[in-house]
């Protein structure tokens, strides 16, 4: 790796053709705050699995802003007009909450198993998380059905509008998380070819887990906002 690096620099220099010397650079090429993975971990600049985690944090920032916007709209709308009549909470939402909380625990177990290289355990925890996620979505749909049976629709009043909207947007994002879990599951069937792909797999799994925890926290927040905030 190191020797190749020097050769590569040299090639660049020749190509530029702007009067350069060999390796007697007077400045330390490392620089402060350069690449975090510049050591001997076997990754070139382009290959770092770190990018999955960084990318996920950035994606979560934008999802956070989406829900911030909807929440502020909720709070403003609750204060305007005199038609704000909160709907009765469908009891089933407690089940939803329990399911998604449990799923956060199971995905943590899955990640722990992956880190200890217990692959069959990892697969099982992952599968359980998918099932719990689907269970959450099912209870959400059932609670929609209950509300419809009580003739509470999207346009009934602003609170019901926000209820359907927020649960739908959260549900769509959670569905994305389930796709992420499925992707991990499909991958876990194949054995990692090298330490490099192993590390990639771990980074992808931890990124999906991060997303999942965020969705869990987001649901708790929405639950409190919709039914406990007055």
């Amino acid at each position, binding site marked *: 790796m190191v*020797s190749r*690096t020097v*050769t*590569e*620099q*040299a*090639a*660049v*220099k*020749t*190509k*530029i*053709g*702007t*009067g*350069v*010397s*060999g*390796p*007697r*650079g*007077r*400045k330390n*090429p490392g*620089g402060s*705050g*350069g*690449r975090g993975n510049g050591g001997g971990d076997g990754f*070139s*600049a*382009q*290959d*770092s699995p*770190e*990018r999955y985690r*960084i*990318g996920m944090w*950035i*994606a979560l*920032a*934008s*999802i956070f*802003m*989406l*829900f*911030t*916007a*909807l929440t502020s*709209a909720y709070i*403003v*709308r609750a204060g*305007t*007009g005199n*038609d*704000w009549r909160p709907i009765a909470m469908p009891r089933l939402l407690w089940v939803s909450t329990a399911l998604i909380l449990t799923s956060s625990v199971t995905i943590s177990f899955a990640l722990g198993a992956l880190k200890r290289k217990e692959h069959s355990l990892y697969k099982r925890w992952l599968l359980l998380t998918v099932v719990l996620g689907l269970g959450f979505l099912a209870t959400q749909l059932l609670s929609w059905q209950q509300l419809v049976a009580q003739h509470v629709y*999207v*346009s009934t009043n*602003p609170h019901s*509008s926000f209820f359907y*909207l927020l649960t739908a947007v959260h549900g769509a994002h959670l569905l994305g998380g389930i796709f992420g879990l499925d992707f991990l599951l499909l991958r876990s069937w194949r054995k990692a070819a090298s330490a490099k792909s192993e590390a990639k797999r771990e980074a992808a799994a931890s990124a999906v887990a991060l997303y999942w925890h965020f969705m869990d926290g987001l649901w708790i927040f929405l639950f409190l906002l919709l039914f406990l905030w007055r």
Partner: protein
Amino acid sequence: MAEVETVEDAHDGHEHHAGEVHRHPAPTSFIRKYIFSIDHKVIGIQYLLLAMFSVFVGLILSVLMRIRLTWPTAAVPGLAWFFGEAAPGGVMNPEVYLALVTMHGTMMVFFVLTTAPQGGFGNYFLPIQIGADDMAFPVLNMLSFWVTFVGLVVLVAAFFVTGGAPTGGWTGYPTLSAIGEQLNVPGAGRGTDLWIISIAIFCVASLLGALNFLTTMLNMRTRGLSLMRLPLTCWSWFTTAVLALLAFPVLLGGGILLLLDRMAGTSFFVPGGLSNGETLLPHSGGSPILWQHLFWFFGHPEVYIAILPGMGATSHILSTFARKPVFGYRAMVFAMFGIGLLGFFVWGHHMFISGMNPYTAMTFSILTLSIGVPSAVKTFNWLGTLWGAKIRFATPMLFAIGFVSLFVAGGITGIVLGQTSLDLPMHDTYFVLGHFHLVMGVAAIFGMFAGVYFWFPKMFGRMMSERLGRIHFWVTFAGVYAIFIPMHIMGIVGMPRRYAQFTEYKFLETLHPLVVFVTIAVFVTAAIQIVFLFNFIYSLFKGPKAGDNPWEATTLEWATTSPPPHDNFAGIVPTVYRGAYEFSVPGAPNDFIMQTDPDPSHEHEAAAPAVLERQGGNGDGQQNGH
């Protein structure tokens, strides 16, 4: 393009196969190479072409608007066919004018000012300037372009639906935009639906793009490229991506609410007691002001999304052609952050006239004026960069200086409009029109022109014509001032904006010669863009060949071939030894030192044997050099 292949073929000949470093091999089929490409350079050019299409459509719309304003009864050939009943005999109805306003604004703000500087130049040059082989997520990158493309198709489709294009302005204020077909207003039906859907699609595309930019910049800088050695262009794309990441979700949220109001009968934005003239509408209790808050929370950062990449390119180009380092590099970086940060807390100044608590207005006003501080830091540092320099007046430099001029001219009136008491009488007049077109419209466009003239040799391996470039610059530069300075005067006299004609207003009669003058200036400025288009296409095929570094610049994009090979550096990971703008360094043999240059004090000839030795007998690595 043939050159790219040659370089890669030559490269495959020796030890370092591109595949070892590069994550995806060069595509061979036409579709994977030019259409559904995951190469950031191809995607960048796709973005630029999309923006070029949009800017010419937007330009034609603005010419039509000027015709409608100046000669309300003039018949324009072809319009009867395009607009049908809305333009009988080619004479535009007032609704057509409003549709033109809306589509011009939307096209220009979203599909030109947001896509070209960031999606186009940023996509092409951010990875190269940080020494990476591609973006962090190449497939996501392809996706964000094609989602943008779908957004544009949906927007253009709004011209062709029953009821015509939307008439609610690019800001889409409810209640007009929220009620829909029940209102029996042209364009408020299907056209507005498509407009909102197009914007929502665009939001998603921009978010995917921003995610990619930020990850790439944080994670993929090459060896030795510490943060304070980055070109200012990279910082501008980074700051822009942060703004896009945090602002577009808010617009997306607002768009969803607006769509629900229209399609699901909710009342987020529509107040009760509205009638369409026949029946009472079933909405109640919504707040139109809520939309304005959501929209402008996005809308103000959007202004900086449009202008910041232009600032980055201007700093980059001024330094290169002044042969001097950027004056106050760190201050430039922090000023950019300052502008970005403050940009999130000033949205209220778009809404002074909508009515708000005077204390709130005061807060927004003070925050708005404080943006003048980082803006002035940037302006003075640009002037400091130019001070005492032996300037090379090439076309990119002319446009970069033009950017500074327009930014100052448009920014000054921002200080006027930032004050509540002055904004209230001016807000709905041509004064605002002149202000924002200079500062965010034309200045950003000048940044793009500077970028095209500057990077064209790198992107296509050929130079653009300097003579045509100069003609293009001077006519455009004089033209935009001739268009927008008179608008300030019209605004002070009280000419209201968004009106289709002024013939019925006695107090505006004296302005008619000025209106005609502006329209003629528009014709000339629009026509001269054909010179640019000709220069672009002609140079693509017939321009003189550009070397690797025609401008004698220092940053990494000039350390590779023109155009760069598929993986940017032909299998090499470049190493950076110094900051981005080392021009005229005392004692150095040349007046510029490349970032990849470890030691400028030695002559090339003396170094050659050492290089060969270092190659370990792999001397054919040098064949990339031609």
